[in-house]
């Protein structure tokens, strides 16, 4: 069991409230996944100013000592200077500490920043990157984690959160969702893939690298590979349904999209609500109950193996 919530805003007047709405939704799925929580926010200019790229990283090697939220960790202290030195022209960086996650933003392109972070701090694990996307991961109580992410004050046009009850791999920050393995892409998963090891081997043979033992990462890498080959979210998820066995409700987001799909048996829950101001998806209705305008929303459950996709 895991919990998923996602919110795609259509009405720009709601952008300043994205974090508050998402945090309220997250609180309702804590019971579904009390061991860790991850969040993705699109368009939070506090942390990724316009014209910048942002890279979200977990510092320290996998499974290493937890990092406190105040940025006093030596790896974090050295990060800024090292990344800056690794970037052409040594631009000013914006570095934000948020629990176990550090977000680094710079006025360069995404690949350049990712490459600089990897060279500057080889032990750092990149958990998200993009022109719009910031990702936060950590283990422990989801509500406490959301506070370390300062989720309630986040702004933006789209976001999602995942509460994890681990079944397929260890409880550690890198096993935490979302999996953001392509630029401005995110995937969160409730369920378990049955044939992920086979697909992992196939992707690895094609040169794809993995950051965790998590089955959901395989789904994210598969989707990223499809998107890189020119598929849109709808097509990528239809291909995923053909290739993956097991149980899944997935919420997948991109730099302009928001999509939901469930497996053929569809025993993992999902509910969608839509108004002219937003599209929301959650594991359970209670996560949607406090959204503005829910009383007049169109509320429905996604059907098995049908891709529901929205574009900005």
């Amino acid at each position, binding site marked *: 069991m895991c919990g998923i919530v996602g919110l795609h805003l259509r009405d720009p007047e709601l952008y300043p409230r994205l974090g508050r709405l998402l945090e309220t939704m997250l609180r*309702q799925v804590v019971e579904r996944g009390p061991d860790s929580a991850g969040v993705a926010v699109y368009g939070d200019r506090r942390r990724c100013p316009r014209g910048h790229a942002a890279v979200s990283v977990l510092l320290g090697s996998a499974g290493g000592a937890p990092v406190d939220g105040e940025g006093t960790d030596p790896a974090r202290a050295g990060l800024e200077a090292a990344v800056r030195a690794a970037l052409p022209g040594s631009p000013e960086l914006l570095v934000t500490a948020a629990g176990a996650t550090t977000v680094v933003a710079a006025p360069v392109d995404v690949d350049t920043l990712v490459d600089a972070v990897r060279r500057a701090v080889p032990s750092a694990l990149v958990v998200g990157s993009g022109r719009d996307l910031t990702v936060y991961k950590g283990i422990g109580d989801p509500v406490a984690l959301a506070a370390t992410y300062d989720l309630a004050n986040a702004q933006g046009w789209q976001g999602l959160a995942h509460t994890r009850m681990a079944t397929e791999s260890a409880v550690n920050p890198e096993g935490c969702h979302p999996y953001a393995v392509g630029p401005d892409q995110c995937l969160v998963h409730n369920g378990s893939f049955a044939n992920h090891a086979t697909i992992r081997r196939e992707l690895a043979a094609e040169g794809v690298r993995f950051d965790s033992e998590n089955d959901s990462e395989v789904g994210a890498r598969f989707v990223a590979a499809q998107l890189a080959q020119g598929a849109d979210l709808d097509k990528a998820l239809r291909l995923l349904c053909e290739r993956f066995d097991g149980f899944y409700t997935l919420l997948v987001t991109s730099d302009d999209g928001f999509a939901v799909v469930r497996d053929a*048996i*569809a*025993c993992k*829950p999902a*509910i969608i609500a839509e108004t002219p101001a937003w599209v929301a998806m959650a594991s*359970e*209705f*209670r*996560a*949607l*109950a*406090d959204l503005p305008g829910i009383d007049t929303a169109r*509320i*429905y*459950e996604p*059907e*098995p193996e049908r891709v529901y996709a929205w574009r900005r």
Partner: protein
Amino acid sequence: MAPLSEEARARRSHATYGYEAGARGRRGEAETPSGGEAEVLSEPATVLAPAGTAERTVTFDLGVTTVRALNSELHAPTATSYEVLRPQGAHAIAAGVHAPLTIDVRGHAGYYCAGMNDGGLITVQGNVGTGVAENMMSGVVRVRGDASQSAGATAHGGLLVIEGSASMRCGISMKGVDIVVGGDIGPMSAFMAQAGRLVVCGDAGDGLGDSIYEARIYVRGTVAGLGADCVEKDLRAEHRAELAELLTAAGIDPVGEYAPERFRRYGSARRLYHFAAGNSAAY
């Protein structure tokens, strides 16, 4: 769907499906009283109230109090009528009711709403999550909106009315309950159904009645596909009669668009009752 029942109709359903009729939802015993509506309706509501309880409506606001407090009261009731405000999708609202209480839930409920109901007349003015009225024994549960998956799962008796649509696995392993759905039902409904009746005024999803034992299924619209060992059967006079009763109990006039003749009947071919080597692929 057709105009739905007034309180009077609900009470009549209650008399049919609740303690008073002694039916406890078992098939063949849940006849509508032959005296008709007037006789049943003339029963004062207090007949339904356990001795010593006051006839008043007690309100629980789940924005203020907990589901546990609500359910504790419902398990040792001090009234016969309850109203639940701001349910906000909470789980297990009015689960385990075992007295003929009238409970009105004013909003959307979460998982297992009215689970194990035994005699309650429970109405949800909204949608419900997974497993509404799961394992119901008797009583009436009415959902004015849509139901999520596994509505009425394993229920032994009583009447579950879903005025909207129900998603996957509606009536899974039903064991005697009557379920009437105003809209559609999702795939894999009535899976391994053992007894009871499922009436669908809309369409049914794929795999209807897979591995069914003995329940009777009536569908007015299309069936995307029948599951293993589920077949269409003749709609005979006795089936039209029971269909009219079920629709009436649910508050739907069994005339015109909703006339029993508009429905088709499905049930077990009984080919999976005993193991046969030739059927091994179907298990």
